[in-house]
């Protein structure tokens, strides 16, 4: 019996691209002998979906990775799998066989995808500026366009947010899944006169969709403390007035349902579409996963969670960001410039000799070596606590992570859970015997 459905991953990220073929699959592998080296990108099994049948036409390992095709970026188009909580008390992939056991077939599974772009509505406060797409309930295996419509668009105009396809389960690939393919990443425009047919006069935009007479987005100006932080993050003219540009990014909800034995089971997951990861062999130091883990599990860890592997991964991710920054320049600009904006004295953050990229790499190498040898208790004190973001003294600004910005616009701190993980490891006993006694 199926007790519950879940969609995994619960938050899937798609990435823009106009190329016809979605990005292939790959692993980003850390070399244990060179923990601060670049992750090696290795092609792995990729699923190719037949556009017409909706079936997986082939599963293959690409010979080499290519992020572009014909001058356009290949979109990252995630699969969302439907999983079932079964009698065994485990989650397992929902398959044709599992459906049959429950007296159902893949045709009994229903999907619905609702996504939106509310960027203009967030600024204007006008619900009529919401751009929304709804696939409606679907159980077939055709591609369904996510057509973003808006009350303040010109008649007949819309922004395509990409498409979804319920992948047809087959004998070779019996799992139930849906694929979300995002939009190309285009810019759309606004006008106060009905747009003419054909290519827009403004070469920046793919189409003119927004009716500037009906809504306030064209000409909007951020004026008060309800504005986003930072404010004015839209395309504006020299007076800060919005020129009415929109994009085809979105986020939203994917629903799945299945009626078996007179009982309807349902699940939902989330999707979003954003820019490509232009350094695919690097990961951000503080990620959405870190925020969700803190929200799920709290700001502290248990000693068993504080493993060297996890702490090394945080250090590695910090280095992966720093390595792609010009630290010498950021020592004078970046957060140093932010600080000057508060009226702070204009000083570089670090002594110049410390921010040379070789010195920064050596610092992280030394840190990893110290972690591995259990001799890094100093690292606990070098971290910036969440309630130290207002400390712009020389000492406060030199804490780690250094020279980066947090969600509050201040010097970056890690999540409290990440910090606790590091501190629990570096302040804990160096060795622990199998019985759990510290030695």
């Amino acid at each position, binding site marked *: 019996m199926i007790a519950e459905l879940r969609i995994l991953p619960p938050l899937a990220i798609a990435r823009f691209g106009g190329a016809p073929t979605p990005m292939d699959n*790959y692993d980003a592998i850390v070399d244990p002998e060179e923990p601060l080296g670049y992750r090696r990108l290795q092609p792995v099994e990729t699923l190719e979906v037949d556009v017409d049948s909706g079936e997986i036409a082939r599963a293959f390992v690409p010979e080499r990775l290519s992020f572009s095709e014909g001058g356009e970026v290949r979109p990252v188009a995630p699969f969302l799998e439907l999983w079932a909580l079964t009698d065994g008390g485990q*989650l397992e992939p929902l398959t044709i066989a599992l459906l049959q056991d429950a007296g159902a077939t893949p045709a009994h599974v229903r999907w619905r995808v609702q*996504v939106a772009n509310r960027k203009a509505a967030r600024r204007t406060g006008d619900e009529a500026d919401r751009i929304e797409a709804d696939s409606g309930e679907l159980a077939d295996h055709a591609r369904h366009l996510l057509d973003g419509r808006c009350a303040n668009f010109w008649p007949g105009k819309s922004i395509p947010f990409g498409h979804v396809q319920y992948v047809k389960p087959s004998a070779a690939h019996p799992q139930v899944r849906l694929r979300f393919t995002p939009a190309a990443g285009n810019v759309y425009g606004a006008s106060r006169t009905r747009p003419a047919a054909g290519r827009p006069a403004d070469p920046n935009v793919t189409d003119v969709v927004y009716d500037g007479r009906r809504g306030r987005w064209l000409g909007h100006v951020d004026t008060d403390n309800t504005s986003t932080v930072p404010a004015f993050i839209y395309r504006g003219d020299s007076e800060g007035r919005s020129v009415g540009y929109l994009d085809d990014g979105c986020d939203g909800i994917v629903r799945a349902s299945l009626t078996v034995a007179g009982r309807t089971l349902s699940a939902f997951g989330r999707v979003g579409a954003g820019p490509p990861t232009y350094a695919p062999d690097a990961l951000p130091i503080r990620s959405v996963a870190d925020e969700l883990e803190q929200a799920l599990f709290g700001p502290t860890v248990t000693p068993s969670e504080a493993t060297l592997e996890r702490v090394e991964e945080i250090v590695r991710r910090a280095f992966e960001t720093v390595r792609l920054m010009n630290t010498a320049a950021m020592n004078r600009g970046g957060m140093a410039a932010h600080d000057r904006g508060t009226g702070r004295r204009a000083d570089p953050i670090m002594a110049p000799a410390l921010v040379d990229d070789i010195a920064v790499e050596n610092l992280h190498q030394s840190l990893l070596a110290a972690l591995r040898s259990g001799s890094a208790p100093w690292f606990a004190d070098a971290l910036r606590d969440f309630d130290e973001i207002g400390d712009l003294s020389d000492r406060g600004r030199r804490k780690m992570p250094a020279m980066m910005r947090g969600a509050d616009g201040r010097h970056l701190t890690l*999540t409290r859970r990440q910090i606790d993980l590091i501190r629990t490891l570096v302040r804990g006993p160096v060795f622990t015997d199998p019985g759990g006694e510290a030695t």
Partner: protein
Amino acid sequence: MTIEPTNLTAQLHHRAAGNPPSTLPEAAISNCFPGLEFDVRNVWRRMFEGIELHEAHGLVTRGEGDLEGLVGLELVRVGEARLTLAVRGPTATAEDALLDTTFIEWSNALADVLSTSVGQLVTCHFAAPPERPDPDPPIVATAELRVRPLMARSDVTNEPLALIDEDVAEPGELTQSLCSPWQNDYRECGCYYWAASRPDYVNRESTEQGPSIGNNWMDRSRQPKAYEPDNPADPRQLDYVDLFRDWQGLLRFIVGGRDLE
């Protein structure tokens, strides 16, 4: 393959067959100011039942019923958890001066409240937006508000799932405070927090003289290798219009720190 239903970490990080690692939340920037994939600050806007908050600070933007009177005030403390801090540092005339006040981003500021008080009433303290920096503004209103769970719950066990609840963010709300269009902020913003996704310094080479040489990722030409800070007005670098029209053709993927040819 099976997953323990209570293993939320495994579910959050589950990489579906065929999905590249860039589809996972660990590949998405969360030190959002405002962010690239999501502005994850939006997750905390509805954490207290009856009110809605600004995604970036304590301003109450909506209140239900009797709580409507809180609109325009700022939530500055929840129980013992402070949401604001003094910003202090040296100036030209003093070694330790009050420079500003700042809100602490939600994820860290409310971590204890979320960890201990979901479903419970907590005392929320509100102040008027200060006209000048004031780390301890006078409290003008308090309210007992119930803490809303941010995560959806299992229909079977009622245990939390690794899934942002529907009541927390409607479609479009996780990205609503990002730039429109995204290309504008992608060009506008400095690179000091998202370089792992939007690189800054590439094709780096060490020199015998000491400092390295390399390119700003936005350089139109990779020769000469002479890094200049981000400046859309610099004709040597890509500008806003370039990205509006042809970001796909102009931006280069960076692997191993270098342009992927």
